[in-house]
């Protein structure tokens, strides 16, 4: 091993391969620049949907909404995820990154893709929303940019897989890969499927936009496009769950309750999420109910089961680690004594709660074949996915970034007090935002719609006053979240470029627990279950889980009741 190529972080004990480190830093900075751009468009979109403000004219609104969608849902998240893949392979397995030059080529393609796609939208003839449903045409460069980005990301996936091979060949670890790397591998496998689906539909669509093909069937487009559009969100789920486990390990030295359960749950994502594009076709013509019911659930909702398992095992592993440290009083002392001022932890925990309670429950409810009739294309839908992708994925990645600034960028965090408030502002702002959005959607307010007052229309329609109140709250809570996002960007950019070099201890005391020299948790007599109650190792988490299930059941039943009130149809 060429030791010149490696650096050991004195804080965490993590070992960085220098070429991989440069790639991770560049990818993370690029991702945050895209996040900034996405945030500016978020502000413009929010201020337009806030009825009292109604800022932009319609053409600008749809243009900004298109930019917001592609930059946030695809470019920001996937750029950051490629950095996570390199971290989970090269850093966690303590080995060199495979073919750094190919990795740089992939990065270059991704950046070119972002620029080409964004330029097409800014030019004004590609305001087709992220979904670009045919036969609405866009400037061909819109599709070309997405294709280039996808090829670049695919190269990143192959570099990750190659690095796993190198680590195994060079025996840089013993036994199996860590759980977090396993989760990243899950994300990578889903990413390869996703990108392949994207290629299958976007390449013909590009050819159609160039005039080389004269027809693309719109239902086929929707089916295959959503294997890109929805599966890419499943990359996010796998990646941010891996980040949750990583943060539980970093902050608490937590070990998985059982490797078997957590890994099987990740495998369920691969096996049962892929055709979840069915969720988007539940009210489409030409597709049978049998197909819809089967593909929305695979007869037993095993992907939902997987998320419910992670929802228990991640906080459960934290509870066990905390109990082992002596926080054994009652059901919740372990949680009260958690480091709530540390944004690495607080962000991760808010991400977990928001993803489960808001994003998870709403997603399953609206993915039910018949209930989708009262939700499809209302603003409920963006309410749901902002809970999964913004509170779930983005906030988890923000938390990880606070850890990476001292470790990867070797800078102290500037304004740590501001950073410690940021997850609360962003997470709670977004929690209100998604809740009121779903409320407005229940009243029938449309998504992707410039004017809920229909002022220019010949016939007109008046939503109830409560819908306007809810959309006003969408505006206010949206602004709060955007301020939270801006604080994140401010703190990270200032820290990376102007922060003091890390001298000794990082501000959040994550140092000693990251890679403990010895076995981290003390196994008490009779296993760690002895520290819990009722023979449960994590009784507090179990009570939370039951509380979650109760809300889930009630909300599910309420939606069936609402459905039963609409016109009979068959």
């Amino acid at each position, binding site marked *: 091993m060429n030791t010149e190529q490696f650096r050991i972080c004195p804080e965490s004990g993590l070992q960085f391969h220098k070429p991989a480190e440069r790639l991770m830093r560049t990818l993370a900075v690029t991702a945050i620049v895209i996040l900034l751009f996405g945030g500016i468009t978020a502000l413009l979109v929010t201020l337009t949907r806030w009825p009292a403000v109604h800022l932009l004219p*319609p053409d600008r609104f749809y243009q900004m909404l298109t930019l917001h969608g592609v930059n946030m849902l695809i470019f920001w998240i996937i750029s950051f995820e490629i950095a996570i893949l390199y971290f989970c392979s090269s850093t966690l397995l303590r080995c060199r990154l495979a073919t750094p030059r190919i990795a740089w080529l992939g990065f270059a393609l991704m950046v070119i893709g972002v620029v080409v796609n964004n330029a097409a939208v800014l030019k004004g003839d590609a305001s087709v*929303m992220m979904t670009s*449903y045919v*036969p*609405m045409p866009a400037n061909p460069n819109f599709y070309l940019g997405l294709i280039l980005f996808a090829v670049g990301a695919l190269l990143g996936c192959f570099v990750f897989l190659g690095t796993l091979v190198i680590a195994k060949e060079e025996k840089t*670890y013993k*036994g199996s890969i*860590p759980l977090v*790397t396993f989760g990243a591998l899950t994300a990578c496998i889903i990413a390869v499927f996703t990108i392949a689906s994207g290629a299958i539909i976007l390449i013909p669509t590009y050819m159609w936009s160039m005039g080389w093909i004269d027809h693309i069937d*719109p*239902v086929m487009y*929707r089916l295959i496009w959503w294997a890109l559009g929805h599966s890419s969100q499943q990359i996010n789920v796998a990646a941010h769950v891996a980040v949750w486990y990583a943060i539980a390990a970093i902050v608490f030295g*937590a070990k998985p*309750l*059982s490797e*078997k*359960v957590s890994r099987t749950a990740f495998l369920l994502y691969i096996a049962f999420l892929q055709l979840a594009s069915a969720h988007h076709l539940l*009210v*489409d*013509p*030409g597709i049978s*109910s049998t197909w819809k*019911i089967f593909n929305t*659930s695979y007869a037993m*909702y095993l992907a*939902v*089961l997987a998320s*419910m398992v992670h929802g*228990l095992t991640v906080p459960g592993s934290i509870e066990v680690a905390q109990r082992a440290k002596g926080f054994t009083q009652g059901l919740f002392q372990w949680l009260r004594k958690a480091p709530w001022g540390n944004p690495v932890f607080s962000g991760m925990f808010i991400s977990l709660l928001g993803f489960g309670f808001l994003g998870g429950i709403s997603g399953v409810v609206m993915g039910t074949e*018949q209930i989708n*009739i*009262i*939700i*499809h*294309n*209302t603003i409920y839908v963006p309410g749901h996915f902002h809970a999964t992708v913004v509170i779930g994925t983005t906030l988890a990645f923000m938390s990880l970034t606070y850890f990476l600034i001292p470790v990867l960028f070797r800078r102290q965090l500037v304004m740590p007090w501001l950073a410690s408030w940021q997850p609360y502002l962003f997470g709670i702002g977004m929690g209100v935002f998604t809740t009121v959005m779903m409320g407005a959607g229940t009243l*029938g307010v*449309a*998504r*992707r*719609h410039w004017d809920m007052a229909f002022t220019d229309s*010949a*016939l007109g*329609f008046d939503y109830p006053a409560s819908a306007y109140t809810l959309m006003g709250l969408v505006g206010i809570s949206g602004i709060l979240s955007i301020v939270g996002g801006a604080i994140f960007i401010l703190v990270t950019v200032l820290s990376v470029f102007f922060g003091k070099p890390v001298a000794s201890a990082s501000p959040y005391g994550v140092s000693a627990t990251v*890679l403990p020299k010895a076995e*981290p948790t003390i196994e008490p007599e009779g296993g760690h*279950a002895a520290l819990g109650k009722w023979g*449960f190792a994590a009784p507090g*988490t179990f009570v939370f*889980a*039951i509380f979650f*299930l109760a809300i*889930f059941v009630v909300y599910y039943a309420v939606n*069936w009741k609402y*459905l*039963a009130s*609409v*016109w009979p*149809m*068959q």
Partner: protein
Amino acid sequence: MSAIQPPAETIWWKQPLDRVEGTWIGIAFVWSLIMFFMMPFWHIYGKQNLSNEAYRTTPAAFMAKTQAMVSEYTVRTETDLQLPVVHPPPGSDVYLIGRLWQWWPLLELEKGQTYRLHISSMDWQHGFSLQPVNINTQIIPGYEMVLTITPDTSGDQTIICNEYCGINHHTMVGKIYITDGGS
């Protein structure tokens, strides 16, 4: 070892489950099965299900059928655009066109009667969103969707478009008037 390190036990797949995990997996799995069975259950016992009835069509063919209905059953026109209001007989086939940026024609249906509502698009994709009753479906060019509906509420309903369809998407509004029957 923590989750960012290789498992301490090489044979980790033989470690027994914690009781908390096993219990939760059991509960969650039962709930997952219940959620699945609710969907076929509602097809049998519920009243709100999409029909699965759909046909391939063309804009010209669908326009011809709609025009025939409009010619036969128009009862009045509305607004400066002279939009026809059609009152088709109960139980009949009713046609509705989505196009940039209009739902055409306006419909007048009787409360409590059943109609076969055919919907298709002349151009891009549209979203049929009936408010305030809140029924939403996807309307796709080349596909004719058939919904067998029974309006059981009084009061007028508005059709808005909730699939983005270009610059005047927000002006795409139609109406379904509900009369109290016996007309």
